[in-house]
């Protein structure tokens, strides 16, 4: 399904079978699986954290924070809390993102090995995989694989004779986009509503049940066994632009070949769109794209040579996010697309802080008015106001500022299209 005949090194996906079944423990071991864990257990926890830091690995969930740095914030001295947690965030719910699903359904042991190594690095005695309900196949894959890992002695007491004990459990969530935010996720794991928590204290000091906790994304953790096996230098060289590693990139919308590909971090948007996604579908022209899920700023034709890594996409005025592009074509209304996104974010707001709870439905209502021909001239100013009103720092968590990214960039790049809706008293795309 996702196979391509190129010579690019693909540590995360090269062994995935693409036949709807996942690698069993035996199959995973035959590809070198769990050798990273064996090697890691010969190292000190601090050495592992340093190695991951040196590799340049950054959080693949969207925020892009250094994984090694995150781990180093955990106190592993003798005075530290004995009970610490590691949580794998498998709550993939960012609109337009479908990368973690592929790793979960195809190679669950790779994730489990990454979690165990991470747990050892921060000396966590317990780990959770926080999985969204809709990923049923992934749930089956993880349930079976966790049992296999316990039976083989990779989990539980005195793992591989190292003296290190750690347990792991699968938590299947019951909806809400908010659960992807790390402190909200911790509340959900405690059986509560997934409202975000104030930071500080950061989860590394006071996380799950008040204990030091690290939350990492699925793709991030799946990289860890390979970094242990092959070293930081190797990982850095995988990327095109020096940020380290490969990245799962995807494309959806009216392109010829929507799909998902593991590619060197830092390939250009043009390569992704034209070489991998096959360019626009017949009869459709490119108008713009969201580079990394629903909560990233639009980019245009003039940005197609931007390298898809954290620094370059930020410089172009957007975010790498999840690396899965959503393509807008000329026959799809940009205002309608932003309306769909803002309606989603309004629905998914947890309601905890006022700007988000009140502001997002307001923007969704205005966008709906524009789409149905009842928009007024002042509406664009009100939309503009909201992009500042819900800017970073004005809300409790990143949901609303993320929601404003497609809106603020659409107002900038597609202003004429917004104005047409007002002047024509209808959506020009919906005649």
């Amino acid at each position, binding site marked *: 399904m996702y196979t391509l005949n190129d010579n690019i090194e693909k540590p995360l996906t090269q062994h995935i079978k693409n036949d709807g079944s996942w690698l069993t423990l035996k199959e995973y071991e035959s590809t070198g699986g769990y050798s990273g864990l064996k090697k890691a257990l010969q190292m000190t926890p601090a050495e592992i954290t340093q190695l991951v830091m040196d590799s340049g690995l950054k959080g693949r969930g969207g925020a892009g924070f250094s994984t090694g740095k995150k781990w180093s914030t955990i106190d592993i001295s003798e005075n530290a809390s004995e009970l610490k947690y590691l949580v794998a965030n498998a709550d*993939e*719910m*960012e*609109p*337009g*993102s*479908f990368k*973690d*699903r592929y790793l979960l359904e195809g190679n669950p042991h790779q994730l489990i090995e990454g979690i165990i190594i991470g747990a050892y690095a921060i000396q966590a005695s317990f780990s959770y995989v926080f999985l*969204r*309900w*809709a*990923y*049923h*196949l992934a749930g089956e894959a993880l349930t079976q694989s966790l049992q296999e890992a316990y039976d083989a002695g990779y989990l539980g007491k005195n793992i591989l004779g190292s003296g290190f004990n750690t347990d792991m459990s699968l938590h*299947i*969530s*019951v*909806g*809400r*986009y908010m659960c992807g935010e790390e402190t909200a996720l911790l509340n*959900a794991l*405690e*059986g*509560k*509503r*997934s409202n975000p928590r104030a930071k500080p204290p950061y989860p590394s000091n006071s996380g799950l*049940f008040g204990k030091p906790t690290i939350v990492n994304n699925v793709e991030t953790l799946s990289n860890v066994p390979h970094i242990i096996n092959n070293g930081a230098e190797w990982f850095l060289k995988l990327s095109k632009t020096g940020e380290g590693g490969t990245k799962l990139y*995807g*494309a*959806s*919308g*009216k392109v010829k070949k*929507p*799909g*998902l590909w593991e590619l060197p971090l830092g390939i250009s948007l043009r390569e992704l769109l034209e070489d991998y996604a096959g360019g626009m579908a017949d009869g459709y022209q490119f108008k713009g794209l*969201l580079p990394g899920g*629903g909560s990233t700023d639009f980019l245009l034709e003039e940005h197609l040579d931007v390298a898809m890594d954290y620094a370059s996409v930020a410089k172009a005025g957007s975010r790498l996010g999840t690396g*899965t592009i*959503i*393509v*807008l*074509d000329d026959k*799809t209304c940009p205002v*309608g*697309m932003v309306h*769909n*996104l803002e309606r*989603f974010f309004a629905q*998914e707001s*947890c309601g905890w802080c006022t700007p988000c709870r009140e502001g997002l439905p307001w923007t969704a209502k205005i966008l709906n008015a524009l789409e149905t021909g009842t928009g007024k001239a002042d509406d664009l100013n009100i939309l503009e106001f909201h992009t500042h009103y819900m800017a970073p720092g004005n809300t409790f968590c990143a949901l609303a500022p993320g929601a404003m990214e497609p809106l603020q960039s659409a107002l900038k790049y597609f202003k004429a299209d917004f104005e047409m809706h007002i002047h024509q008293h209808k959506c020009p795309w919906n005649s």
Partner: protein
Amino acid sequence: MKEKVLTSGDISEIEKVYEHFPLRSAACIEGLKIVQKNHRWVSDDAVKELAELLEMSPAAIDSVATYYSLIFRKPVGRHVIMVCDSVSCWIMGYEGILNQLKDRLQIGYGETTIDDRFTLLSICCLGTCDHAPAIMINNDLHRDLTPDKLDAILETYK
């Protein structure tokens, strides 16, 4: 005396969950999931009984139950259809799928067919955007949909 909703089987399943947590209330979401798995939905009486079991108030249980979109506080049919209405499915024309479903089943979002067979709901991005538009029926993912494929799919859910 009024008959209880939670069976002894439900209760022992829920007890097994909270034994692992420092507080019984931490098993709230798991408890709701167990009730729903065994009873299809979570009734007011089930909320009250769960509250007693988890040493919480019914209001505290309900605040969690009504927050999570996949906990059903109203009765649902034998099969729950969830239509992805997020951005990639929107671009690829999920509205045609939704309209066909509404037309065939003669129900809207949040409603159940008279024969108790189907309930229609929306769901957040299903994470299969390269195969949009997509829906889930119970635990099954159906993707690369066109309206004309729906009749044959619905037929398999009795």
